[in-house]
Each structure stands twice: as structure tokens, then as C-alpha cells.
């Protein structure tokens, strides 16, 4: 097990290094950030001082090593636009994004599993076919389009829910959260559903496939022969066995949700990391772009690692296979 984790750790480190190289050199090759910081009528001495201050006069590989050295100390440079540390800007907006993503995961589980299990238990009913048809739509609709529709229906036509911002927030351990106030909750509902839609469809598919498979196993037949109520069979025996793929996939998809929140946050003006990234790309705010991309790479690598370990804990066969190897 520990050899497995070590190997994974090494692979993860390589991935992070490769990504940091790609991102840094890529972003440095685009537009010259110098021109964003100086105006043409500045005196020459001042221009040079600015260039020196941001290290643009050094060779690019030196800039990279400086960047890595600083990054390891948690310093990703100052934002060109906000004149604040990039890391601080990103971290400040992280709770909003995480809240949105967690709410979406919750929705995917709460809505996806019952619908999927139902569709698996009664595969030929009209309702099941409707559910599966809906899940195909959920897969093919572009996120931003669904977001617009949600705003159109619930904010413009019906006027039930707000469409922008986080609403009223409450501080929990110094972190502002929306879901504890009614106002915040109404603000959270639309963007979270928007973000969750793809995952709801995914969970429906997984739960249905799992239920179809599990329901014909001998241990279900045995449980039924033993006289267990069908409720107990579904809630204990079926549910437990379909949870493995669902947990794995949702875990892996969590990073995906954070990435997709770029779109949702832009539509719903949700003040998270994704919205910051879009703004930074448009203004060529290099430290923030690099910082965001690095942070999300690290996050992805960590998520993959956690899911691998969790998987081996949930499914004893993985552990046994590893011990044998």
C-alpha cells in the first residue's frame, strides 16, 4: 500500500512540475506584461525601474527559477492589476468556489442517486425512460446555456430567485459562507444547480447501471429468499454496492466542478476563483493566471491521490490485489 502511495506521489510531483513549466513559459510568451504596467509617456528611468522591479529584464529561465523559489515559499508574485499578492487574491475567493462546488456535489447525490436507482429498479417504466432521456440532455447541454435558461426562467420570468452574487454571508471561522442565511441560500440555489446538472446526469447513469447489475446478483436473491423487505434490500444491499463507483467518480469530478465553476461563476456573477481567472485572462494579469492554474493543478493531483487511496479502502479487492503484488 505504501509503495503504491509513494509511486503515486512521485507521479503527482512530476505532473505538477511539468504543468508549472508549461504554464509559466506559456503565459510569459503571450503579450508583454511590461506594456501593461508602464505608460508611453513615463520617463525612461521610471520604465527601467518598473522592469527591474518585476524582474522582466532577466532571462526567462531565471525568471522561472525565481518564480519556483518564491512559489515554494507561498509567494506567487503581486497581481499587476490589484497590486496585492496573487495567492492572497485567489485564496480569498476560494471559499466561494468551494461552497458552490460542494453544494453541486450534494445536489448530484441527493437528486442523482434516487432517480438512478429508480430507473434501475424499474427500467421499463415511462418515468425511468423520461429520467434517462433527461440525463442525455443533461450531458449534451452546454453549461453556460443551461445557466442562461435558469436565469431566464427563475429570475426574469418568474422572479423567484436572484441571479447574481452570493447574497448575505455569515462568517464561520472567519470564512464567509452563504448557505447559512436564507438570502444566501436563495442565491446559491441556481448556480449550484447549474453546476450540478452534468453531475446529476452522471450519477443517474452510474446509479442505474449499478442497480441493474447488482439486482441480479445472488446475494440479492438470497436476501429476498431470507424474507428481507424490498426496502431493506434496496437501501442496504443495493445502495451500499453502487456507492463505490459513485463515490469514485464524484471524487474525481470534484476537480472538474471547480474547473467548470469558471463558467457558472461568470454567468451568475459568483465572486469565486473562476471569475477572477476570467478577469485576469482578459487583463493579462500574469501572476494571477499562473497562480490559479498552478493551484488547480495541485488540487487535481491531490484529488486523484485521495480518490485512489479511498478507492482502495472502499473496495477490499483493490487492497488485496495490491498486497499480492
Amino acid at each position, binding site marked *: 500500500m505504501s509503495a503504491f502511495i509513494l509511486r503515486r506521489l512521485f507521479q503527482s510531483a512530476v505532473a505538477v512540475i511539468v504543468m508549472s513549466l508549461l504554464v509559466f513559459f506559456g503565459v510569459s510568451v503571450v503579450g508583454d506584461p511590461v506594456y501593461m504596467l508602464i505608460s508611453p509617456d513615463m520617463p525612461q528611468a521610471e520604465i527601467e525601474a518598473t522592469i527591474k522591479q518585476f524582474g522582466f529584464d532577466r532571462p526567462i529561465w531565471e525568471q522561472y527559477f525565481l518564480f519556483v523559489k518564491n512559489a515554494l515559499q507561498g509567494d506567487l508574485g503581486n497581481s499587476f492589476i490589484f497590486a496585492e499578492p496573487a495567492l492572497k487574491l485567489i485564496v480569498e475567493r476560494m471559499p466561494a468556489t468551494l461552497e458552490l462546488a460542494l453544494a453541486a456535489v450534494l445536489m448530484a447525490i441527493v437528486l442523482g442517486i434516487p432517480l438512478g436507482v429508480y430507473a434501475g429498479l424499474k427500467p421499463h417504466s415511462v418515468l425511468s425512460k423520461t429520467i434517462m432521456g433527461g440525463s442525455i440532455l443533461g450531458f449534451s447541454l452546454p453549461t453556460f446555456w443551461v445557466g442562461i435558461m435558469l*436565469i431566464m426562467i427563475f429570475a426574469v420570468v418568474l422572479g423567484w430567485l436572484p441571479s447574481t452574487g452570493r447574497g448575505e454571508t455569515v462568517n464561520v471561522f472567519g470564512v464567509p459562507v452563504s448557505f447559512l442565511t436564507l438570502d444566501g441560500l436563495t442565491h446559491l440555489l441556481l448556480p449550484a444547480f447549474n453546476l450540478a446538472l452534468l453531475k446529476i446526469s452522471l450519477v443517474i447513469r452510474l446509479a442505474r447501471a449499478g442497480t441493474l447489475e447488482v439486482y441480479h446478483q445472488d446475494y440479492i436473491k438470497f436476501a429476498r429468499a431470507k424474507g428481507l423487505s424490498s426496502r431493506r434490500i434496496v437501501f442496504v444491499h443495493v445502495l451500499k454496492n453502487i456507492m463505490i463507483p459513485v463515490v469514485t467518480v464524484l471524487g474525481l469530478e470534484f476537480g472538474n466542478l471547480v474547473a467548470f465553476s469558471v463558467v457558472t461563476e461568470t*454567468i451568475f456573477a459568483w465572486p469565486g476563483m473562476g471569475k477572477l481567472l*476570467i478577469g485576469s*485572462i482578459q487583463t493579462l494579469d500574469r501572476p494571477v493566471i499562473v497562480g490559479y492554474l498552478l493551484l488547480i493543478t495541485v488540487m487535481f493531483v491531490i484529488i486523484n491521490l485521495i480518490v485512489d487511496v479511498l478507492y482502495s479502502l472502499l473496495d477490499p479487492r483493490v487492497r488485496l490485489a495490491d498486497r499480492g503484488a
Partner: protein
Amino acid sequence: MSVEAPDAGLAGSEAAGEAGKARGRVETPLKRFVSDYAESPLAVVAFFVFLAIVAVALLAPVLAPQNPYDLAQVSVLDSRLPPGEVSMEGYTFLLGTDGSGRDMFSAILYGLRISLAVGVLSGLLAMTVGMAIGLVAAYAGGRVETVIMRIVDLQLSFPAVLVALMLVAILGKGIDKIIIALIIVQWAYYARTVRGNALVERRKEYVEAAQCLGLPHRRVVFRHILPNCLAPLIVVATVQTAHAISLEATLSFLGLGLPPTEPSLGLLIANGFQYMLSGSYWISIFPGLALLITIVAINLVGDQLRDVLNPRLRR
């Protein structure tokens, strides 16, 4: 109907009937493919919808009542008219007008053209690149294969949206850059598919035979292995094209895609979004519907192709 052709029973009585009428007893693979495909009426409808969309996009300059980007034909006085309103010059805006007085119907036709062009072009190029790399990986084996597949795995562990955003952040805006970004996003899917199939095909006797005949590697790879990997590749290509169109629309919507001079559907939707809260729903909704119909139609075709071309599901 099927009495005429007892030999052609494989593909069901309908196909047998048709084949029987034409040739007596021979059933060509193409005919079997068509009849298998036609088993789902929804997929047939989707296919024709897709054909219609392509035709409309190609014929946009002929079909559109105005050229929405010719300033001489657009009048600001007509801006934000709801569907069905009549313009200053007296013709009807079927789907209304946008903020600068452009006819939405025409704008959608032109937008569809750009969206489809970007999607299909990037899909084809990505397929070519991915196919070549995947074949090389499978045929060369060893370290080359390991390195290529590690890169594929690394890329596929990141969501496509994120990779695309990274690339756009790096490359900048513009139609050529979007296409490059979409190629880089997609090639890995093709490479993985081709490599998987090529590995299976490589071990078959006909490849061995070709190698024994002393045929050059290039010929073995492209004339013998590749044609046998095409079926799954077509399925991936269909689904990926829909994906590319959706991704381009997303990027354009975020303001990171195509420049306003080449407005795709995504950009039209983004333009309309600012007017939506004040009630001018049509500027966003209609391009959105056009995008939606395109994507759903391609996906339905892809789904059916997957079922038809999958040998394991063949009855």
C-alpha cells in the same frame, strides 16, 4: 417481405426485404449499416436535422435576408425589435434584432457557419494528429509508447474546459488560436482510441502476413491497421465534434474565444445575455436554441453510430 431472401437474415427482416429486392441474396456492409442505423427513428431524424443544419450553414449567404456584418444593411434604429417586428425598410425580422439592429435570423445562420466550421475543422485536424500519434504509439511500442501514453493520461486527467482555458490564456484570442486550442484539447482522445484498437489489430494474422511480405512499415500502418481502427474513431469523432462546438461556444461566451468580427453562436448568446435581464429574451434564446439543436443532433447520431459500429452489440 423477407421470404425472398432467406440468406440475409442477419440484419432483421426489414433489411433482408430491401436487400432482397435489390440483389436477391447479397447484403453489402453499407446496406447492413444503413438498415442497422435506421432502427432508431430518433437517430434518423437527428441525422437529417444535422444535414439540414450543415446545408443551412453552408448556404447562409444565400438564405439570410441580410448580411448582418455589412454595416450598410444594418440600421441602429431597428435595434432590439422583438420577433415579428417590421423594419424601417419594411421587411419582417422573424427572430427579432439584436442591440445594434442586426436581424437575428441572419446572424444565427452566419454564426452557425462559424461554429460548425471551427468544430469540424478542429475535429478533423485533431483526429489526424491524434490518429498519427496513436498509431505510432501502438506500432512502435516500448519507450515511445510509454511516453506518449503518459502525456495522454496527464492531459486527460484535466477537464477539457480547463485545458482550453489554459491554452486560450497562453495563446490569446482569434479564430486560428481557438482552433489550435481545440486541437490540443482533443487530440488525446483520438490518440487513446486509435492506440487501443491498433494494439488489438496489430496482433492479428493479417498484419503478420503483411509484415512477412516485406511491406514497408508505413504501408502496414496506414493501409492495413488504420482502416480496421476506423469504426470506433468515427464514433469518437462525432461526439468530439459536438464537444468542440460546445467548447468553442463556451469560450466565446466567456469572451475568450472568437473576436466580435467573427461572431459564432456563443458570442451571439453572450451579446444577448446583457439584454436578457431587461426582457429582450430573443437575442440570447434563439442562438442558444440553434446551438442546442446542433449539439443534440450530433450527439444522437454519435450514440446510434456507437451502437451500430460496435461489433460486440452486433446481432
